[in-house]
């Protein structure tokens, strides 16, 4: 059909720059004929009347078309199509540019926060415990990704025992925390192997029940961790006269039994000497707390100048995704603080409660507490409470005897 190679390019693409124009004048057909003769591509020719047509020209043909039309026709540009005018139009609008900048800032800002934390690999700890520790270390939903992960890891290693390894990996806004717990439970000694019973805590031996083996620590002996309580090396008197076995003076056994020891504990804690009573005087300041990522604004905190105050807040919005935002109403009320000395009964009651909680933390479950005493030392504003108590605990633990090694 006679189409030249130079005309094979696609002239109808959306991406090409084209112009919709209105042409008004007489003998429009002549102008169109000249377009045919000059190779100007014309599209969507719509005849409005004998003296008016609307058509589309490619941008690169427009100048040529104008030179053909000269001043015989009135030409009005109605619209422009293609990516170039679209981009130009978009960037000529200030609101579009502003919107794009804000969008880019939001996208960038959003990508710099942790929106979700996934914890895996924990066994003895609960996920809540790990999350709480991470929060204390500064890694929480809504925190910046710029936090020092070394410090986070250090905090976790210090806070949680028996963490062998910890890794934090960012996948987008997700922080993936992997925990590997170490193995601290000693393997039970095989019954066919010789072993001693050694102390796992220091204390005074109270009672030893040796089922197998030789008692090495008599009642009343003070033992330290690792000291042998029941020995797996038992002396023998051989009666196999005339045989090589007569030379044997000891044999190895799998020691078994229970060793109870008295373990003294001395703990210190502190109590307030006075009860502080806060009484509102009347004046207060209302404000708004606004948090946007790391940006923290509290209008009330900047304004108050009370010596003593109570801070109350009602959180009205807290979102993490897409952007971490927190908004809350704040009230700071001025208060007058007065104090009254606490009574001895009250102090003792609280000290006992404190003692129970301390004992439950420090002492293994089902341990018999032999005696307990509290000593109060009064300071200027605080009272030091010294808790002394003694428990009866099973302290024996089996330890394998490696033949050839010293077992001390």
């Amino acid at each position, binding site marked *: *059909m*006679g189409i030249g190679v130079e005309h094979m390019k696609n002239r109808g693409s959306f991406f090409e720059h084209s112009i919709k124009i209105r042409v008004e004048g007489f003998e429009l057909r002549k102008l169109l004929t000249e377009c*045919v003769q000059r190779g100007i*591509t014309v*599209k*969507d*020719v719509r005849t409005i009347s004998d003296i008016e047509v609307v*058509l589309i020209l490619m941008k690169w043909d427009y100048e040529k078309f104008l030179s053909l039309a000269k001043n015989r026709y009135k030409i009005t540009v109605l619209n422009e199509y293609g990516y170039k005018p679209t981009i130009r139009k978009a960037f000529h609008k200030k609101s579009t540019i502003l919107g794009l900048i804000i969008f880019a800032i939001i996208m960038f800002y959003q990508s710099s926060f942790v929106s979700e934390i996934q914890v895996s690999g924990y066994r003895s700890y609960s996920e809540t415990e790990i999350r709480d520790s991470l929060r204390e270390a500064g890694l929480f939903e809504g925190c910046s990704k710029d936090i020092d992960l070394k410090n986070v890891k250090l905090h976790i290693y210090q806070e949680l025992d028996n963490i062998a390894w910890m890794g934090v990996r960012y996948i987008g806004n997700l922080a993936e925390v992997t925990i590997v717990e170490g193995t601290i439970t000693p393997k039970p000694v095989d019954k066919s192997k010789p072993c001693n019973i050694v102390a796992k805590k220091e204390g005074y031996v109270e009672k030893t029940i040796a089922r197998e083996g030789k008692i090495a620590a008599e009642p009343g002996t003070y033992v330290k961790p690792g000291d042998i309580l029941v020995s797996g090396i038992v002396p023998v008197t051989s009666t196999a006269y005339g045989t090589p076995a007569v030379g044997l003076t000891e044999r190895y056994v799998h020691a078994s039994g229970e060793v109870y020891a008295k373990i003294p504990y001395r703990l210190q804690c502190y109590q307030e000497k006075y009860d502080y009573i806060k009484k509102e005087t009347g004046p207060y300041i209302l404000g708004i707390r606004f948090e946007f990522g790391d940006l923290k604004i509290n209008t009330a905190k900047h304004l108050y100048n009370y010596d003593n105050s109570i801070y109350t807040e009602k959180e009205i919005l807290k979102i993490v995704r897409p952007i971490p935002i927190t908004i809350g109403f704040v009230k700071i009320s001025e208060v007058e603080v007065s104090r009254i000395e606490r009574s001895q009964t009250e102090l003792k009651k609280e000290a006992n409660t404190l003692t129970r909680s301390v004992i439950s933390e420090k002492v293994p479950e089902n341990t018999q507490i032999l005696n307990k005493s509290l000593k109060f030392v009064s300071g200027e504003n605080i009272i030091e409470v010294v808790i002394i108590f003694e428990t009866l605990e099973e302290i024996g633990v089996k330890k394998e005897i490696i033949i050839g090694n010293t077992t001390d």
Partner: protein
Amino acid sequence: MNIKDELLFDFSITMPRLLISGKTGILDNVKKIVYISENCIVVDHGKRYSTVNGAGLCVKSIEDERIIVTGEIYSVEFHGNRGGTHEE
């Protein structure tokens, strides 16, 4: 059609060559646009003229001596110096 006729057909660049299908018409070898309206388009092919009659006619493109017309096409006419009007 033998080779000679085929070659003559291909190289007859001053004769009307029209392809009409449904609501689209392709007019080749266009040298001049004689008349253009919503109901009628007349073009000069050099030696002869052709007319497309219809309703709501729109020239989709004018390019490389080719005009693509869309709309309701009722009839096509050829005019020229060889014996008056012939309608198909």
